[in-house]
């Protein structure tokens, strides 16, 4: 019991020690909006370019495979989760909404891969934004 309370206190102290700098807020936000940019603004050039290339290419391939882009919805749980995944693409998702891309009828079997590419690109971008945050607060070199 004493160990668990002291462990809780030490974890609270560790969380309190993380500095909330401008970069700690800016890096994940920019990283979400433009994939890889959270790393680029922290001068992690190679990582940023690789992340940007991977996520953006996955997103474009998803659109070219006629993947479906989910809209905000309150219906089926899978549709809602699909929307959450798509939103992870940040600026790319906003662009698809503006241009009305990804709304066509699915006409071949591998189009379903396209839908998955779009969702996973967004989820990977969430991980990428979290990584940018960890770099900004000094948890990762």
């Amino acid at each position, binding site marked *: 019991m004493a160990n668990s309370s002291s462990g809780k206190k030490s974890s609270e102290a560790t969380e309190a020690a993380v500095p909330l700098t401008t970069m700690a807020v800016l890096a994940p936000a920019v990283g979400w909006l433009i994939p890889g940019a959270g790393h680029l603004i922290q001068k992690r050039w190679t990582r940023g370019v690789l992340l940007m290339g991977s996520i953006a290419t996955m997103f474009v391939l998803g659109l070219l495979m006629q993947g479906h882009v989910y809209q905000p919805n309150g219906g089926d749980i899978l549709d809602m989760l699909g929307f959450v995944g798509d939103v992870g693409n940040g600026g790319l998702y906003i662009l698809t909404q503006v241009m009305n891309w990804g709304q066509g009828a699915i006409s071949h079997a*591998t189009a379903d891969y396209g839908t998955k590419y779009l969702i*996973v690109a967004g989820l990977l971008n969430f991980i990428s934004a*979290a990584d940018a945050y960890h770099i900004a607060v000094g948890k990762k070199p």
Partner: protein
Amino acid sequence: MTLALSHFSAAVLFGVFASIVFGITQRSTSHEQIKYGLYCFAMFVGGVFVAGWVMWFLRR
């Protein structure tokens, strides 16, 4: 313009991009990132073959 990839090439491309992101985000040093990225890619491709054989047996 549309792109119609085969199931295998779509899965391998998926593995390539996901492995790059996993490698960079889940490890700290460059050497570890490359190693982990290659490990993830091998697991993705291995998983594709395993899933393919499982489906082949289920279909019989």
